[in-house]
């Protein structure tokens, strides 16, 4: 079972905080990979919130091809961070040419576009680069989105952090999601490494997804090009989130009703029973069976945690005003926020969605049996 840690902080903090938490939960990951999402960035990116940032790994040839491609599309580099790696290789970490974090200026002719259209175009560009990279094995891209950095690599999280020099101010962020990977049934493939990002929505999960195939089939047939990949059975959690919130225009309180709907008896007693019955029917192929703990972030920088219907995975949320952590284990939380009031730690149960909104003042528990904020 992979270990997850996410934090949301009023002030930008170093990604090392989250990696420290992964390190204390070390028995739960095996060095087969780490994934890191940084959002609501501090440092130089603070000044360029609109500029999409491309994150990925490139070979020398790949970067040349990327530059040509991006220039052709009208993108100009606005800012970049170069992660310099030591010359001496570290066992367990593959040798790469370049870890790219590069913010671009949007093409001029995009100025008049609606935000939805911009999202769509950014996604299509990311998919195209991914396709080009897969063809020649010279590029791997994880996100292309404003105010968002993703780093993924094979290796032990703490070693990787040292190797990549992640403890630097430019990478400080207010939202950090980190996953230490326990490789199971898929070959080590960075596209299978959490967190998964799609157009501002991001999730990471532990546990297997036993309902993967029907969910994948459903998403793949939505005629939305971003619903692809699926090297990991957990990628669907991010896409379901995106589908529920963008495709169906619902709030985060409805996400759990999509993946783990109430059973008939509870559903009938719900204040929004008729709506939920329709949602359950129409989104039936998106029902998960677990065991999964899902931690995710939304475009407004809310952070949330949900569990499967039987609550078969651990997960705890705790912190203090201004800083909250979401962790697979309490020891991870202790390592990062030792001075919190532990009596207020919350372990979300089978009908809970734990949410920390962008004001970072409290953990709100949204129970599935409560009324929904409906789009109707």
């Amino acid at each position: 079972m992979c270990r997850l840690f996410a934090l949301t902080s009023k002030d930008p903090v170093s990604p090392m905080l989250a990696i420290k938490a992964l390190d204390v939960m070390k028995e739960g990951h095996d060095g087969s990979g780490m994934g890191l999402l940084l959002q609501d960035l501090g440092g130089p990116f603070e000044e360029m919130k609109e500029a999409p940032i491309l994150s990925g790994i490139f070979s020398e040839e790949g970067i040349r091809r990327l530059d040509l491609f991006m220039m052709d599309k009208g993108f100009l580099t606005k800012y970049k961070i170069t992660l310099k790696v030591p010359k001496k290789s570290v066992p367990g970490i593959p040798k790469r040419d370049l870890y790219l974090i590069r913010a671009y200026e949007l093409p001029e002719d995009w100025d008049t576009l609606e935000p939805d259209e911009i999202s769509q175009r950014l996604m299509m560009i990311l998919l195209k680069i991914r396709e080009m990279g897969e063809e020649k094995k010279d590029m791997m891209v994880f996100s292309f989105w404003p105010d968002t950095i993703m780093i993924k690599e094979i290796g032990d999280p703490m070693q990787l952090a040292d190797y990549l020099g992640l403890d630097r101010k430019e990478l400080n962020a207010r939202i950090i999601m980190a996953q230490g990977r326990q490789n199971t049934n898929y070959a080590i493939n960075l596209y299978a490494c959490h967190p998964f990002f799609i157009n501002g929505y991001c999730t990471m999960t532990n546990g297997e997804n036993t309902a993967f195939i029907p969910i994948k089939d459903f998403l793949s047939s939505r005629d939305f090009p971003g619903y692809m990949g699926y090297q990991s059975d957990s990628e669907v959690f991010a896409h379901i989130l995106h589908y529920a919130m963008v495709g169906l225009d619902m709030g985060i309180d409805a996400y759990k009703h999509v993946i783990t709907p109430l059973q008939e008896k509870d559903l009938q007693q719900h204040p929004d029973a008729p709506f939920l019955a329709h949602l359950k029917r129409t989104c039936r192929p998106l029902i998960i069976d677990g065991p999964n703990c899902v931690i995710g972030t939304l475009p407004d920088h809310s952070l949330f945690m949900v569990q499967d219907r039987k609550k078969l995975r651990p997960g705890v949320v705790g912190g203090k005003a201004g800083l909250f952590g979401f962790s697979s284990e309490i020891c991870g939380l202790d390592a990062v926020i030792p001075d919190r009031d532990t009596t207020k730690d919350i372990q979300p149960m089978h009908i809970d969605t734990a949410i920390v909104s962008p004001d970072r003042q409290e953990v709100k528990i949204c129970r599935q049996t409560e009324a929904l904020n409906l789009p109707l």
Partner: protein
Amino acid sequence: MSSNRSLEPSSLSLNDLPWQIRYSNDRCTLCGQCTAVCPVQAIELKVFQKRMVKISIQQDTPHSNQYDTFYGIRQKTRVENACIGCAMCTMVCPNDAIAPVKNPGLDRLKFHINQKGIPRRRGGRRNSSQSILDRIKFTRISMLTDPALDAGRHEFEMRTLLGRVLSPRENMKRLKEKGWIPPVREIYPLIIGGMSFGALSPSMWEGLQMGVAYLNEEMGMPVRICTGEGGCPPRLLRSRFLKYVILQIASGYFGWDEIIHAIPHMKEDPCAIEIKYGQGAKPGDGGLLMWHKVNKLIAAIRGVPPGISLPSPPTHQTQYSIEESVAKMLQSMSMAWGFRVPVYPKISASSTSLAVLNNLTRNDFASGLAIDGEDGGTGAAYTVSMDHMGHPIASCIRDNYLNLIKIGKQNEIPIFAGGGIGKNGNLAANAAALIMMGASGVQIGKYVMQAAAGCVGTEEDRCNVCNVGICPKGITSQDPRLYRRLDPEDVAQRIVDLFISFDTELKKIVAPLGRSTSLPIGMSDALGIDDHAAAQRLSIKYVV
């Protein structure tokens, strides 16, 4: 027959018959029960003479004969009296003196069951015990990476949807705009398929209905039963139990005068309307209720004169095209109940099924598609149709489901599979395999007769006389002397046993796969088969 007599072409010996009576004169009490119970008068009481030659050892005493006479059972060899292997004789024999045995060689009866130019007709099945479904294994067992669930303790929701489910977006839009949203029923995924009042005896029908009502009202299982094409007793039409019933309309429209007239008096809507266009056992052929079974009661319910054969045409005569069949008929039937009742077609599995499905996807009134495979049963059909016509269910369901995925409508039109599910007794495993290949649920018929009423039919051409109303168990007979053998209360009890045990077995299959909160429709990664070609054809794993 004497050895110097001429032979008729259809003169058969015991060795030519598919079933041979083994009889022990030593144990027989000559009670006569076997001859009385035999549905085809295959056996008769006979007087046998035995000659004993007495050789004298005295020169002056001549050799002599002693004639001994005794009574016993003799099997007839005439075509019309050929033993059907039902073994009712064995059942009634107090001394276990008699039993039919399958001819281990090749019988020659099949060359002669066309006397007077009428090819063999029978009830039953295809008579092939081969089953691809039995060979499918569930191989994705949760081990360590995710815990297997507990079939006995975890909560399960093994339900399916019957009805047109709109895409989430379209459904949301219509909710907002208060538009028409097609009716959807949440039902148990094991459905009792269409067996008509007429094909089945009154006792059997009553038992089925009672069992279904009990399952719904006492056990909380939303089990549904289809009427088949034969109408529905007026009292049931006007009762609250109608909501558990799927009314079937087929090309003969039998009983629909009564149904239409009952609509204003209905307390509840029926669960759904099934329009039968085809049946897996006899694809391209219509329904058939032979005159033997059309008594006064059946005639009244169906709205026909008694004592005549009732062959339904192979197609709905008023319709000449798929637009007629699908668009107009679905819409008309929907309209009859104010668009509150799901209406769906049932077709024979065929290489043309995909075309039907594609057409249905563009019609909001199509609430699903039931596909009946070649191993489906029937009350009466020509043997040639049963044995040689049709399409296996597994690949047909798979093709249709994969096609729905391609167009993104896999949750929108439920596909129900029928035909040979559980034919070798592995009901839950067969049903689960079909569900994981994409079926939303399964329909069963023969299994119900076997499990709930003791039908003696097997895949070895045993009995199969449903068509002529002489069912020795009283399941498919309209003769009171026969159907009184069956107590409806007992049938109801067995229906409940069947569904409860099926439910446990289904949970025992899905729990180790880590599934419980929803029926694992299309979870094909769980399946494997030890045949490479079949694995490729069904897009599942090849395992050896």
